[in-house]
């Protein structure tokens, strides 16, 4: 970065931005390596584009840095949220339906990760409609699939099951992408307490994910889920290696998938509670908390971590602690407009 007060700053320096994107895309970059001056380059470029009402420039910026939105560590950062929002509006104005569909789908993913499932459904449905108009059925199907996750999170399991059933009927048996609906099918079976079937579905999902190029993050997520299912069957010695392997895979991408790390640590922590190690669970849950809280707005995972802590405190006969953690769980769920009555039902189903 040249330190030159006389430099002309009236045009967007796309070369510098390309270099920045390359740097941010480097495999070993962690959030602590992000320079505020570099972020401000992106911020400045976006501000300039908006000021000049240059929608094409906004879309171009979004395409250049979109990979950051796919990795879940930085999506909470203000700059990225702003870019996502403005790019959608620019694409609408340009009637750039292809990019608009892509951006809406990505927005849906980010909203879902944070726990704003209703808003996510809206984005996914808009993306679905656009992809259908663009005659891209597979892309449409993927967005429709994501609504199943959201419906499940909102407690509408029947709707989620119907969507997953339809999708599995429409996806070739040998398509590795099939691992995604199989994984959700496993969650739904797990929710109903049909653990053996859930395990089968999850192992099938794992097998499919393993065939995807660069699919190790998918594998890591599925391993954590498999560990959870095994743990629920009290097969703890089989479950533990799943969690460790998941964390080992994620450790190869330091700082890029903090939400996934926290998710695995949370599930692992829940198993520790079940195996009578609540203190170890609390330590691990603290790590999970630290992994995501600086990156903003991952309320969906935060409330789950807090709920797990509440259960750990119950095991420790620490009722004040349990109460505090239940209270903050409900607080976070209220932010996401999630029904606390559904939570109670889920808890009862889980324990009885």
């Amino acid at each position, binding site marked *: *970065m*040249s*330190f*030159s*007060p006389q*430099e002309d*700053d009236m045009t967007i320096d796309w070369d510098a931005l390309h270099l920045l994107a390359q740097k941010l895309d480097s495999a070993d970059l962690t*959030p*602590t*390596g*992000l*320079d*505020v*001056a570099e972020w401000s380059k992106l911020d400045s470029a976006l501000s300039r584009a908006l000021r000049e009402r240059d929608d094409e420039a906004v879309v171009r910026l979004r395409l250049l840095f979109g990979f950051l939105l796919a990795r879940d560590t930085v999506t909470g950062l203000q700059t990225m949220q702003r870019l996502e929002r403005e790019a959608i509006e620019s694409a609408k104005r340009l009637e750039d339906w292809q990019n608009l569909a892509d951006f809406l789908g990505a927005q849906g993913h980010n909203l879902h990760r944070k726990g704003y499932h209703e808003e996510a459904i809206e984005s996914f449905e808009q993306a679905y409609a656009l992809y259908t108009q663009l005659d891209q059925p597979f892309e449409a199907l993927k967005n429709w699939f994501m609504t199943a996750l959201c419906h499940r999170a909102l407690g509408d399991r029947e709707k989620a099951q119907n969507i997953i059933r339809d999708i599995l009927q429409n996806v070739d048996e040998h398509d590795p992408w099939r691992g995604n609906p199989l994984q959700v099918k496993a969650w739904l079976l797990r929710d109903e307490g049909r653990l053996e079937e859930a395990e089968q579905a999850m192992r099938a999902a794992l097998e499919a994910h393993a065939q995807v190029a660069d699919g190790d993050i998918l594998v890591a997520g599925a391993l954590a889920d498999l560990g959870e299912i095994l743990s629920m069957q009290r097969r703890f010695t089989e479950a*533990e290696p799943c*969690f*460790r392997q998941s*964390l*080992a895979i994620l*450790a190869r991408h330091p700082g890029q998938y*903090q939400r996934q790390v926290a998710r695995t*640590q949370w599930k*692992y922590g829940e198993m520790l509670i079940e195996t009578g*190690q*609540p*203190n*170890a669970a*609390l*330590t*691990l849950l*603290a*790590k999970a*908390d*630290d*992994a*995501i*809280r*600086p990156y*903003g*707005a*991952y*309320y969906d995972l*935060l409330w789950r971590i*807090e709920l797990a*802590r509440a259960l750990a*405190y119950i*095991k*420790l*006969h*620490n*009722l*004040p*602690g349990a109460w*505090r*953690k239940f*209270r*903050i769980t409900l*607080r*976070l769920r209220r*932010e996401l407009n999630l029904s606390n009555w559904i939570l109670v039902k889920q808890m009862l189903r889980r324990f009885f």
Partner: protein
Amino acid sequence: MHHIRFSTLLARHLEARERSASWLARRVGVSAATANRWLSGETRPQTPERVIDIARALSITEPEAINELLTAAGYATSIGPQSSRTREKGANKPLDLDWDISSLPEDRASEPSSSPSRFSITARWANLRRGFRRGKRPALAIPRHCGHAPVRLQEQTLALSAAFGVYFVGLLERENSFVSLQNQLEMGDAHPASTIAYIDVVQRLLSNETHIIILASHGGMGKSTVAAQIIRCLFELGAADVILGDSAKSKIIDANLGEPKAIEPGYSDAIGFFYRLREQLGLPQQTRISPKQYTRDIRDRLYGRRAIIFVDNLETVAARDQIVRFLSAVVSPNIRALVTTRRAFRETEYPGKTALVHLRPITDISDAAIFLRWHIERYRHENPLLTRLSLSLDEAHLQRLIQVTGGMPLLMQIVASNVARLSWSYLDDLPKLLGDALLNSLYEQAWRELQAEGRAGRAAQRVLQRIAHHTHSGHRITFDTMRGWFKADRRLELLPQSLTLLYERFLIVNNDLEQGDFAITPSLAEFVSRQ
């Protein structure tokens, strides 16, 4: 059975031999970073053989002492007649501590946690009482050099750098960043004044007598350094595992235009401060929320953690008493607060369980000698001229140095560097100013000297401005970063000379002599931002 942590044990051995992690790293054949991770507790030696190497480097020959190291590192003991059964092949290899559950402190609960038989009503009641108890805790034996080991902030680094700047984060993560002086701290407004050590401050926080410590003094007295040492000690003792808070900051340099650019301060009132805390805790923000709800959410989020809320530069905020009152609503035996301020508080201005600690100027000759020797040892790699001072730290010179600087540690460091470069007669030419006035005068003089040094000097000025700009970026300024700057300006050949000019005239901190990790003091950053 009490299990001592490997990191604590290693720190004790190093302290007893007055050796550093870097020294150990060289002797054992690992990187300094690896040795620091051992000291911070982030990792342990990968093999028992490595533990033996460490023992050998430390000249530990007693079987019991070696076994203690092996046990603390998670290995079966293998020395002497107490040799236990041989482990299976591969079983001695510790797993990555990030997910090695066997290493998790099962015996150290975050809150009262004993599990009596659930059928014992008496036991359950005792447990409940423990859960609600807020009594004074027994005094804990704190090692004399507690806080020696650096804190590995990991995921917290970016957030803390953005809030407090890389200088403070460097203080937390760097070893040997503090020297304890006998008469450095003074408790409250009591007359006669009672001096205390930082260990006493830690003891008060741990004993539940005090939940909020306010460190008050003029600038340059070392508030950040003392605060960092207290925090490091709390981490080392396992009494802290998360740092929150913010510093009021009002200006950064726009690196593109080279101009000061105002930014929002971290907080300007109590609600703003708690907004920041909520943000750091990942809590949703709401505008229509009562103060009671604010504090309740924060306490609920932090329950079970051992948190330090650090409030830096409180004097820059108008509603500082409100912030302290709000803090008092949040703090607990496991949520403590550390506040720094340049403006004095009267004891009547702050709520109970708050203690005021003043940082005193150095007036004692022996303290001055200890301090300067530490400064020479700490900075001699960057500024070799400092070694000239070692032989001339006699009583007369020290007395004169105290006199002209008013005993302000930062001033003593800067003046000492100039004395090393020029001579002790330099003290006679100093302007008759004290405190911030003298500090700014010295900065101005040094800045003018850089200007007079031609291209290298002007390049050095730009380096300072860039470092000041990056203070809150969370980005490490390494040698590579600097090379990039100079290369972009087509002045790469000036880098060594510019760095030397800076080392000799300003207090430039470099936390990593191999790869570089540069920071400057907040006062210097403020000065640079005005140029």
